[in-house]
């Protein structure tokens, strides 16, 4: 009470802060309006669309007395995600210096509030950065939302769990992911991570009829909170080492002055990496992922394995490769170790599983190892490989879990390898689709998975980590064994394949429209990218991250001068053709 009274009673002139001499800004009048940073709304639009889209969804659903018509929520979610992607297009154009797309010249449209010169830019006090990486990830995460919601549509109906919450949480979670991808400030990154994670904890627990689902949610939550604490502690260390939480300012500071004692910096790296490793499920911080993947509703798992991982890697790349690229030699060994462990442990443990969802969980751990070897390269080619891998993996893994959703049948419980026996006979189409995804994950040529692995290996070898590349390829061979096990179960187990007994109606699995659409998209992309990797290669090559200073504000804006205008390219941005 008393301190409040003091605040209320204060006369303005007594509270002028005695600034230390030489402090950069003029003393602000405490009663003056707070100098809020300028906002480039166009840059925020993808985030706003997703966030507000989720809120509107909740509002609509609460206003509808009879419940929404069938498929409405799915359609709505797909539209919102599509809108968000559309909102990202001008950003992509701006980053790449386009002035028009096809015949459509959009220079004169309303988003000309964006800076006039082409290239990446940042806004909101450098909290949000718009660059190739962030726009690429916006598109990717939105695609994951679209695919995930298409899978959810029939799933929720089947399980009797209809409601808007799953979709709203998907949108919110995607919003968090997009924030993570765009964050130029560690605190914003952390908040994006939490937004993403908390929504996904709930998604994991959202199959209310299934006890395993809530247990998965609980486990995910506890270990997720644990990792968040590590992550945050890492931010604290970096804050102590550099005096700021902003990545741009950190990079500035580190390039300006080399700290004599970088112990804080190093321990900050280590703790941050632990946090990231938990989020993307890299060994030895993977223990949650098989249980969570096993228990959580399968469509949500599809989103976890695609969207959440993508966002995690976006953060990893932005923080380590871009902001702390100068200290690559310090963090590379840790990433190296994480990559090797993930590759080997993921593949080996995947083989001994008898549950397909757990198998896929471990296989995703081994994929994480593959992506990590591209991160470890810390080169533009590495970043490109990361993006390419994430994009291809999104389709492969969503497709895989899409099939698993269908085979799981009512109750979402039939996931043992036995349940896949003879699938090739009873449901040839479904089995064929699954085979495509499994082979793609195994890295068979003419699938997206192969090209992705190829790029990762190129990046690693180019950066001089040939041994790592060899380990990766060997573990890919081990992992191939696990995909073969599923294929064997599907095609080669039913009594020499010669039983001609007609397939009973109960064995047949109907492929509902939305799920089918999602699977179709995934198959087409997986094979299409495998056959013609050119476009996605170009796209991922343009997904270059960079940390850009916000242009200096004029004095009338409020004197929060941050720095001079200028773009600071990511390592070797110019040689992105590499």
């Amino acid at each position: 009470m008393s301190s409040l009274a003091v605040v209320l009673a204060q006369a303005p002139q007594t509270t002028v802060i005695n600034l230390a001499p030489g402090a950069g800004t003029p003393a602000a009048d405490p009663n003056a309006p707070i100098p809020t940073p300028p906002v480039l709304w166009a840059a925020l639009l993808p985030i706003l669309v997703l966030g507000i889209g989720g809120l509107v969804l909740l509002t609509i659903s609460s206003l509808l007395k009879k419940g929404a018509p069938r498929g409405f929520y799915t359609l709505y979610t797909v539209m919102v995600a599509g809108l968000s992607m559309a909102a990202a297009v001008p950003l992509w154009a701006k980053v790449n210096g386009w002035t028009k797309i096809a015949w459509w010249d959009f220079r004169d449209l309303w988003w000309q509030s964006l800076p006039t010169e082409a290239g990446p830019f940042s806004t909101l006090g450098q909290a949000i950065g718009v660059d190739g990486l962030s726009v690429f990830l916006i598109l990717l995460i939105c695609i994951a939302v679209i695919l995930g919601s298409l899978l959810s549509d029939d799933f929720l109906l089947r399980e009797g769990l209809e409601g808007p919450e799953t979709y709203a949480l998907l949108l919110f979670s995607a919003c968090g992911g997009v924030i993570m991808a765009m964050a130029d400030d560690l605190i914003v990154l952390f908040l994006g991570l939490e937004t993403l994670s908390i929504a996904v904890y709930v998604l994991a627990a959202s199959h209310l009829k299934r006890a395993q689902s809530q247990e998965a949610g609980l486990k995910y939550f506890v270990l997720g909170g644990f990792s968040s604490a590590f992550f945050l502690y890492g931010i604290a260390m970096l804050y102590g080492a550099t005096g700021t939480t902003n990545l741009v300012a950190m990079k500035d500071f580190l390039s300006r002055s080399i700290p004599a004692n970088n112990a804080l910096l190093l321990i900050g790296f280590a703790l941050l990496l632990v946090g990231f490793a938990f989020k993307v499920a890299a060994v030895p911080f993977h223990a949650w992922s098989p249980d969570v993947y096993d228990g959580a509703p399968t469509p949500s798992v599809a989103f976890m394995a695609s969207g959440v991982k993508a966002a995690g890697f976006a953060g990893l790349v932005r923080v380590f490769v871009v902001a702390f690229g100068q200290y690559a030699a310090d963090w590379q060994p840790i990433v190296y170790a994480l990559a090797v462990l993930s590759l080997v442990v993921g593949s080996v443990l995947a083989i001994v599983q008898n549950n397909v969802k757990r198998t896929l969980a471990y296989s995703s751990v081994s994929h994480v190892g593959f992506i990590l070897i591209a991160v470890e390269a810390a080169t533009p080619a590495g970043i490109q490989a990361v993006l390419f891998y994430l994009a291809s993996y999104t389709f492969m893994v969503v497709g895989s879990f899409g099939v698993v959703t269908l085979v799981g049948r009512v109750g979402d419980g039939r996931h043992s390898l036995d349940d896949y026996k003879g699938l090739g006979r009873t449901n040839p189409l479904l089995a064929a689709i699954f085979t495509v995804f499994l082979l793609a994950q195994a890295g068979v040529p003419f699938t997206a998975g192969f090209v992705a692995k190829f790029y990762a290996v190129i990046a690693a070898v180019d950066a001089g980590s040939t041994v790592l590349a060899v380990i990766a390829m060997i573990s890919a061979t081990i992992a191939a064994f696990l995909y073969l096990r599923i294929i064997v179960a599907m095609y080669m187990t039913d009594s020499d394949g010669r039983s001609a007994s007609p397939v009973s109606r109960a064995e047949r699995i109907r492929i509902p429209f939305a799920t089918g659409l999602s699977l179709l998209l995934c198959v087409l992309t997986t094979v299409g990218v495998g056959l013609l990797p050119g476009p996605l290669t170009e796209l991922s090559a343009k997904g270059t991250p960079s940390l850009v200073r916000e242009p200096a504000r004029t004095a009338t804006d409020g004197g929060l001068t941050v720095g001079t205008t200028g773009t600071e390219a990511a390592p070797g941005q110019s040689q992105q053709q590499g």
Partner: protein
Amino acid sequence: MGNDVNIGYLTLSAILFGVGAIGLLVRRNALVMLMCIELMLNAVNLTFVTFGSMLNDITGQVVVFFVLVVAAAEVVVGLGIIVAVARRRPGATADDLRVLRG
């Protein structure tokens, strides 16, 4: 910059963080695990404030504000999940949940 008391604060927060982490790994009761997470977050908060005061920078305190919000959100969701689990399996501990089956 900074003095021995600052280092004392950092030491305290490091120990609190470690105790929280150990507790989370050792205890099997979901609620206690939740408390351990809070303990760890508090340790981080203390670190932030200490660094802020060592650097004479308000940012350290602002960050703590965000951490508080995050902690609140986490607790709400975490308790929600715990209640849901406990309704299905009264008296469940994390072991019954096949934790770390890995």
